[in-house]
């Protein structure tokens, strides 16, 4: 049970944006959808939420297609960069409309969050700054009674204080409601700690799909003199390289062979999610990333 994305393909103006995307979202987890600009993240989320159509494939929620399915669509909420709310409508009116259309929207909680973030609900949506538009949409995302929440660049325009507050509220909401969150973002470092599972999408393909812990267990930086490092890394999946003076570093994604003898001059360090992401999606060096 949960959301299944099956064989999604999408072509825009003869350019393939998504090619055969497959993944599953289990209920009650926080997922990360990471990808560079133009990787197809927003397109994928829009297809899942039935805002645009895929050229092939399907999206299922608890085994039922989400296409033209009010029950399924009512169990999802996509907060996107694109503003779909009427510019001339007041925030409080939008809250009330959301309550009318979604059902059990938690107005009290929304107001409480608005107070915490300093959002004036008597303002019109069109008058809000980019940051406050994001805050407003985040509030709806947290207060809406949907089980699956998709956040596309949720911290767009938010200052550091608001970002901190958002992460706290997100985790608090997750603990209380056990909703499923799928967060698409560029600011990977900030969000790593709250993600349980990540999908890395590159050039329209999912190149990594796994639990954060398991993924990071397979991500290493092997550093030392170039010759020693290259000898040690022979046969390993090198996804990137770096030089700092005489020190050479190879980024590895995959299991290390225990039988290899580690020279004294070579060190092995763990890679963080951001470094892994950068190396996997770097166009100049394309290592064969394995899922």
């Amino acid at each position: 049970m949960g959301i299944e994305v099956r064989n999604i393909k999408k072509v825009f103006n003869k350019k393939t944006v998504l090619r055969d995307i497959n993944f599953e979202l289990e209920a009650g987890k926080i997922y990360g959808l990471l990808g560079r600009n133009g990787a197809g993240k927003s397109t994928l989320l829009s297809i899942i939420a039935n805002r645009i159509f895929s050229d092939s494939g399907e999206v299922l929620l608890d085994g039922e297609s989400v296409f033209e399915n009010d029950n399924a669509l009512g169990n999802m909420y996509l907060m996107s960069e694109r503003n779909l709310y009427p510019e001339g409508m007041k925030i409080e009116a939008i809250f009330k409309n959301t309550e009318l259309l979604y059902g059990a929207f938690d107005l009290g909680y929304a107001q409480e969050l608005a107070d915490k973030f300093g959002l004036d609900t008597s303002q019109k949506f069109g008058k809000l700054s980019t940051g406050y538009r994001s805050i407003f949409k985040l509030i709806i995302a947290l207060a809406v009674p949907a089980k699956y929440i998709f956040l596309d660049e949720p911290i767009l325009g938010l200052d550091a204080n608001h970002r901190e507050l958002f992460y706290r509220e997100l985790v608090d909401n997750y603990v209380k409601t056990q909703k499923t969150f799928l967060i698409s973002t560029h600011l990977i470092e900030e969000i790593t700690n709250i993600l349980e599972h990540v999908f890395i999408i590159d050039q329209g393909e999912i190149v990594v799909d796994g639990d954060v812990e398991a993924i990071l267990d397979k991500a290493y930086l092997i550093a030392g003199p170039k010759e020693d490092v290259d000898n040690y890394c022979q046969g390993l999946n090198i996804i990137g390289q770096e030089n700092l003076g005489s020190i050479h570093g190879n980024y590895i994604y995959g299991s290390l062979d225990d039988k290899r003898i580690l020279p004294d001059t070579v060190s092995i360090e763990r890679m963080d999610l951001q470094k892994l992401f950068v190396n996997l999606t770097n166009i100049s060096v394309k290592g064969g990333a394995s899922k």
Partner: protein
Amino acid sequence: MMTTKEVSVTTYIFKHILKQLGVVIFWMAFSFIFFPWMFNGFDISKFSLKSSFKDIYVGSILAFIIPCLALFPYNDFKLLIQNGISRRTYWKARLFSFLGLSLLGQLLGIIISLLNPYTNHTWENGSMYMLLYGKYFTSSTTNSFLGLCFVLISTSVVTIIATFVGSFFSLFSKKTKVYTFIGFFVVGIVFINWIAIATQNQSAHVIMKNMGQMMTFIFGITPGNADGKWNPTMPFVTAIITGIIATFGSYKVTQKFKIKNE
């Protein structure tokens, strides 16, 4: 039976259109007061509220305004898809709301013309149907009843057509819409020009004649019968068939709605 979601969406759309209609009616009332006052040189002694309102055909005005409001469906679609509403539910709710308002508008128009002490006309005076078909039956009650039915059906059909046309144009980007309108304008001008020269061209003359016969058939024009005595069967049939086609078309087009990159 409507689902809870369909009721919620219909309620939202109905209220939203009602609000828009309220704004339009406010400006209309303002215009009906302001222009007579202005043309009387802003002289309050010459201004009469009674004469300002006596010639208003509320039903006809609403029959024009409500379809105009139905021409712009995209903003509602954006909000509703953001709120997890399917295209089918959106289409159904929108159709019900506009049809409901359209019927209410016509009933309101008829009631006002019956009750308004200032008005100097009856609803039949403003009805094209009564003018062309209103004397077909010997019973004036039957004629009036059919006239009333036709008003309700035809305004509903016009509203559905507007929904269809509005939905169709919502599929395109702003740029494409502008080019399409220019295209329609040019084609319209060429068509008018073509009609003007049709009498001089033998083949065009035949086409015009055929078109005339088709219009005669569609509108039930009965040669030899005086105005008011034309057969009303065909206008009813035409309206109902057009309504069914437009309903089906608007549904199919709404199914293609998507969030645009603009």
